[in-house]
């Protein structure tokens, strides 16, 4: 996937600032050490951005908790608060959780199933002639579907 590029799904309502936030987070995530505003500007594909614009966006990211800043002499240095993977995991976990309010916040296509039910589903897929694409069947003690 291309990092820091145009996102079709979000292009309509997320303004330019949103796209910049994303591009800047990508830079912070890829950098092993904290970066100054100037270094972040230098890494952006769009070179002609004003220094203050980049600073404003970094400030916003820090306020939202996605970036941390620390003093380095007279300059601030910024780094990502968490790794990209940590945020992806948070996103997925909140979608997978089963508690009441989460469940109302997001609607999942299929809830987590138990091992027993997974085995039954696997057998149903095989019965439909789709078994090859499913994971190899584990146990056979499962009940059939719909009984």
């Amino acid at each position, binding site marked *: 996937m291309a990092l820091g590029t145009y996102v079709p*799904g979000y292009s309509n309502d997320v303004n330019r600032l949103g796209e910049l936030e994303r591009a800047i987070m990508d830079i912070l995530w890829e950098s092993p050490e904290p970066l100054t505003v100037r270094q972040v500007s230098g890494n952006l594909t769009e070179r002609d951005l004003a220094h203050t614009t980049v600073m404003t966006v970094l400030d916003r990211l820090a306020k939202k908790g996605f970036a941390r800043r620390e003093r380095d002499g007279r300059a601030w240095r910024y780094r990502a608060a968490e790794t990209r993977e940590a945020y992806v995991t948070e996103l997925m976990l909140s979608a997978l959780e089963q508690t009441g*309010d989460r*469940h109302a*916040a*997001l609607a999942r296509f*299929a809830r987590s*199933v138990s091992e027993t039910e997974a085995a039954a589903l696997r057998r149903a897929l095989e019965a439909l002639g789709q078994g090859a*694409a499913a994971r190899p069947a584990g146990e056979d003690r499962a009940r059939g579907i719909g009984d």
Partner: protein
Amino acid sequence: MLPAPAIVLAAFSAACIPAGSSLAAARWPRRSPAAAIVLWQALGLGWGVAAVGALAALGASDARSGVAGGSFALVSRVLGGGHAAAGPRRLVAWTIGLRLLALAAGLVLLLLLCWILVAAFYAVIRARRRQHMLLSLLAHGDPKVPGALVVDHPAATAYCVPGLRSRIVISAGALDLLDQDELAAVLAHERAHLRERHDLVLLPFAALLRAFRWVSVAREAEAAVSLLVEMHADDRALRHRPARELATALLRVGVAGWVHAPAGALAVADGEVAARVSRLLRPDPRLPAPALALVAVAAVGAVAVPAALLTLPF
């Protein structure tokens, strides 16, 4: 003596609990999920009105103007202080005190129920705002799923973030797992959730579950309504896609699911995916018109009876 409406309203709200349990256990709702969802909503609303109303009816002092009018009469009588009825003054003060207490309890219950709803709503809004923030930084589009957002995670999952800025999210794992037709079926299912605002249907039941997690009927109701909402979205998706695509998509996501909870841990959710699949592949006939009419009558009655007891003079 207890006023008759208080007894009837209390009995009505108590009867809603076994009624909910048997509705949760019934098989017919999956034949017409939409009708059953309406009945659940009516039952929930009727229970709340009856429970609050029973306490208010205990407090109502003037039988001839109904519970609502009687409650006002009591309050104005206490505030006005003047025309206390004949009889020993002490006894009158006693009954007025008890009635005020019942009225206050009714008010507290009403406020509590409203608070539960508002708190759940805010929790939902907070969770969604976080989702939108993270998605704007992490998700990207993909031509295989037009209009949806893809998150690069190997677990197979798909979900939607309802609301004004609604989004459908599909994991990279699901994108790899499902073929083009199955993905289209998943999108049709999620779009139905968003279009019909199923999240708003679910919210009051999720709110009750949040507040009364230890009450079995609250758990049963939330599980039943959330399954019915899924089944209804399945039905809607069938308008655009064949049943088999949706069924294999469900089976694949179910089998590849990230977390296989140990059997029994999700006692309520267990069997949901299987139930939806068997319903898609071997559909039962929808409820006939007379049965649907009966459900409608029950739904209207569940709200109208307690509302009438509250407002009509007795």
